[in-house]
């Protein structure tokens, strides 16, 4: 028996044994190859409590870091006295902004090319800002020592309201920027003003509505944290951190800290939810690195919930004025909007460089209109920086909310059914690829069947009859509809980069001699199930069962470069990379197979998992046979290198455009103004579906976010700039009691440019659901003559609106 055959047989029986063992553990009786409902490969560790999250890490000699934060929103630092903290017996290190400044590390770039203080040197600019840090032997001692640091502030007036911030008399927050004399952050516009104004001027009907998308927080269940381990001997830094973009972070650390990039390894282990919150680099990560550099020990930083809510990246915070123009019979003609954007103390927006307002430009929604125009002014205030995409592709949530509320306001004005109005204006399938009036190309869509499917599941007509009966009895039932188009999968790199790093994703696939494989991807999972989905993509392309494909991610030393997981870009970009790298491997396998079968490549047929001679299926080799041959003894065809592996970097041609139709049914208690979401129907079209179970889960999660934002989530501030949402007692997140059992459906419009026709889906529901909920509540409140109430629709806010006294949330 030849060595290779022996090796193959033994490893085959090994892998059979291994597979049986995993199967016993996994209890996985549903493992279809490729696309299909397959149980998740990551679950066995999580259900045993064997996940490996940042705070689970214990390294020998590890120290603990805690951060002292500003108790006030705006103030000059007069003095910082750390002597008592330094004297604490368990304290190893105390660092202030002044000490960082000596090393040139007091400031770091944000993802939008602004500068943010790592530790404040001159002023504090928001409540919760980092002022000093302590490294101590255990986490309790580190916190004790914070109490011993004495900081004297000269309090300055806090600038909380965006309009007040623009007043010339307002105190200047960013006096660190040379020549800055106001709180203006940037202006931005899109669309054609003249054309839009012309359409508005001759429209039969114009409806105007002010609306606020309040500041909210992604609040993943795991807060942010890091473990930094600097090895002074070989000059390498290993940083485990809660990051959704390990490669981009590594490059930024190299630039900020001046460490050579090849000596930095960023590991993003299991992450307890991200939702955009873990895209930015936070001062805490830098503090942990500095702590480890200065002590020579591994240093762990885990923020508490108050720190997470008050200092890490928020989302939304747009004050929008919207206008919609239409004909009397309900043909939408144009949309115009003006936005005031609160960016907090530093511009920390996480969006491609050319898009300071993210993808807000898609505010024309899913409708066939003639013109659109938007102006925006962004402002600095004494609030935490951020502006991340909380489960959406860069500000699309705000855009979809604006247009979907405006359409409902128009329906109200025209006394038209909101479904009828939408059906009349949706883009038609023959219009795709469609270029919007603000220049966005929607790759594909077939909207009407999606909306009709939602109507069918909901039994819309019956719901309207039920509502009529209830209204006659004085009960408040509402039906809300929304339709959205997402734009996900950033790049393409010609248009999209983050701080100069192109938004393309690498992938590498190695097939081992025995026919099992390792896929290395640049994106990273925070619960999306990449270890499963990506194995399925490769399985479909190359015929190796998903169980035999390991997906490696979240470690810059182990994976090719790419921009990470956010904005629903994983399947759209890295998923495409996975499919294409598998095809590249298959192409090489084909050449080897042709030699093995002694036929020309043209005479070979591929049949998921094996090549056979055309017309003679019995003459075949499996992909596993080819793998062994590629590594084994014996000659390979002329010009073919040994091994069976490939690497690519995928640059998407365009964004992918999932869409969906959502219907929400609510009951409002007329006596308490409590809203109950009774039903929620979500029909999503995310192109070709890989794992329907995972897709459904992603939709469920997003719908819950949407109900949260519509009904309860808000980061509010008092006049002094104190954050009123600093705990989960104040920042409300839906529990199982506030959400219904979701009803989902789907249609499939493949992306024409994605290699497997897939589109992103992780955030569609967060984008599409808030307007459906708000539209439903306002529909319920028709008898009160209300056209709009701002989120969150808490009982007290709704009660005031029902009693003729609606309050803006901020």
């Amino acid at each position: 028996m030849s060595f290779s055959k022996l090796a193959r047989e033994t490893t085959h029986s090994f892998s059979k044994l291994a597979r049986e063992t995993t199967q016993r553990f996994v209890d996985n009786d549903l493992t279809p190859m490729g696309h299909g409902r397959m149980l998740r490969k990551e679950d066995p560790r999580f259900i045993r409590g064997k996940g490996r999250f940042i705070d689970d890490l214990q390294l020998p000699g590890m120290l603990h870091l805690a951060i002292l934060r500003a108790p006030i929103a705006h103030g000059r630092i007069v003095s910082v006295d750390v002597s008592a903290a330094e004297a604490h017996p368990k304290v190893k290190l105390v660092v202030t902004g002044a000490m960082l400044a000596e090393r040139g590390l007091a400031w770091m770039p944000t993802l939008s090319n602004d500068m943010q203080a790592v530790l404040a040197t001159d002023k504090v600019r928001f409540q919760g800002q980092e002022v000093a840090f302590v490294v101590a032997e255990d986490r309790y001692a580190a916190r004790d020592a914070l109490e011993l640091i004495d900081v004297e502030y000269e309090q300055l007036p806090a600038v909380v309201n965006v309009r007040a911030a623009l007043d010339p008399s307002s105190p200047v927050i960013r006096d660190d920027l040379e020549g800055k004399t106001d709180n203006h952050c940037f202006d931005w516009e899109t669309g054609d003003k003249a054309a839009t104004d012309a359409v508005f001027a001759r429209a039969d009907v114009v409806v105007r509505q002010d609306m606020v998308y309040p500041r909210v927080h992604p609040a993943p269940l795991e807060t942010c944290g890091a473990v930094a381990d600097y090895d002074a001997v070989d000059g390498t830094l290993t940083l485990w951190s809660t990051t959704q973009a390990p490669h981009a972070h590594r490059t930024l650390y190299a630039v900020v800290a001046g460490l050579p990039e090849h000596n930095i390894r960023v590991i993003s282990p299991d992450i307890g939810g991200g939702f955009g919150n873990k895209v930015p680099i936070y001062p805490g990560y830098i503090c942990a690195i500095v702590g480890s550099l200065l002590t020579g020990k591994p240093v762990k930083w885990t923020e508490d919930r108050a720190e997470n809510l008050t200092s890490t990246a928020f989302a939304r915070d747009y004050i929008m004025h919207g206008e919609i123009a239409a004909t009397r019979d309900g043909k939408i003609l144009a949309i115009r909007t003006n936005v005031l954007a609160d960016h907090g103390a530093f511009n920390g927006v996480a969006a491609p460089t050319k898009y300071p307002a993210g993808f807000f430009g898609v505010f024309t929604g899913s409708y066939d209109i003639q013109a659109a125009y938007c102006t925006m002014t962004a402002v600095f205030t004494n609030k935490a920086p951020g502006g991340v995409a909380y489960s959406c592709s860069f500000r699309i949530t705000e855009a979809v909310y604006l247009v979907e509320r405006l359409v409902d306001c128009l329906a109200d004005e025209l006394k038209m059914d909101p479904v009828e109005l939408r059906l009349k204006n949706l883009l038609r399938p023959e219009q795709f690829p469609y270029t919007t009036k603000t220049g966005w190309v929607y790759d594909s869509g077939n909207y009407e069947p999606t909306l009709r499917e939602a109507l069918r599941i909901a039994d819309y007509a019956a719901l309207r009859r039920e509502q009529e009966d209830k209204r006659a009895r004085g009960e408040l039932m509402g039906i809300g509809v929304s339709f959205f188009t997402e734009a996900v999968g950033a790049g393409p790199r010609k248009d999209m980069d983050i701080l100069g790093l192109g938004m393309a994703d690498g992938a590498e696939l190695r097939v081992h001699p025995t026919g099992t494989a390792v896929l290395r991807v640049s994106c990273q999972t925070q619960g999306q199930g990449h270890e499963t989905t990506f194995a399925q993509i490769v399985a479909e392309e190359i015929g190796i069962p998903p169980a035999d494909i390991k997906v490696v991610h979240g470690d810059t030393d182990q994976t090719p470069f790419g921009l990470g997981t956010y904005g629903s870009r994983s399947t759209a970009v890295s998923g495409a990379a996975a499919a294409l790298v598998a095809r590249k491997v298959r192409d090489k396998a084909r050449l080897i197979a042709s030699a093995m079968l002694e036929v020309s490549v043209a005479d070979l047929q591929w049949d998921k998992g094996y090549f056979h001679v055309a017309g003679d299926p019995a003459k075949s080799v499996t992909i596993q046979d080819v793998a062994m041959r590629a590594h084994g003894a014996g000659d390979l065809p002329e010009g073919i290198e040994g091994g069976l592996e490939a690497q690519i970097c995928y640059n998407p041609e365009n964004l992918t455009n999932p869409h969906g139709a959502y219907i929400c049914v609510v009951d409002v208690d007329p006596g308490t103004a409590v809203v109950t979401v009774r039903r929620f129907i979500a029909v999503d079209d995310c192109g070709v579906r890989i794992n329907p179970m995972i897709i459904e889960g992603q939709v469920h999660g997003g719908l819950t976010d949407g109900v949260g934002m519509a009904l309860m989530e808000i980061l509010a501030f008092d006049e002094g700039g104190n954050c009123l949402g600093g705990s989960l007692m104040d920042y409300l997140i839906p529990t199982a009691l506030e959400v219904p059992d979701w009803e989902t459906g789907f249609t499939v419009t493949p992306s024409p440019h994605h290699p497997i026709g897939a589109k992103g889906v992780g955030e569609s529901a967060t984008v599409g659901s808030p307007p459906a909920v708000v539209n439903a509540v306002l529909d319920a409140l028709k008898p009160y003559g209300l056209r709009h109430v701002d989120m969150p629709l808490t009982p007290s806010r709704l009660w005031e609106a029902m009693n003729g006294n609606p309050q803006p949330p901020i």
Partner: protein
Amino acid sequence: MQVTMTVNGEQVTRDVEGRLLLVHFLRDHLALTGTHWGCDTSNCGACAVWLDGEPVKACTVLAAMAGGHEVRTVEGLEQFGELDSIQRGFMHCHGLQCGFCTPGMLMTARALLDRNPSPSEPEIREAISGQICRCTGYASIVRSVQWAAAEEAGTRTSADVGSPP
């Protein structure tokens, strides 16, 4: 101070500070990191464990208070290499995504099934209402618990009570 308790059937004794929370005792002193921590205010339930058979939030119990008592954590669910049906239910019905809330959810759900072997959907929702899941939207957690209940009653008919393929 010295504290002795039984954790997952094993007796442990450690020297601890009086103020040490049970959640940190389990995680930092016993390296049982399956029990998570997610908030400052006892709202999230990521830390749920059993104390003498009842679910408690381990961030709200001092290690010293658990002295002389029995603690069970997620690591104690699997017995003799066999997963608990609640663990299998979560896998089958996609009751987890990031997995951070999962240990707490599992402990609460196991306790529910022990006192009520066939809970209704509202009863399941009520039982887990002290816990936050930011990923799943809860419906699949409810199904996971129903799956386990059916499994234990011997009435489970299909592998999946979730979405069909």
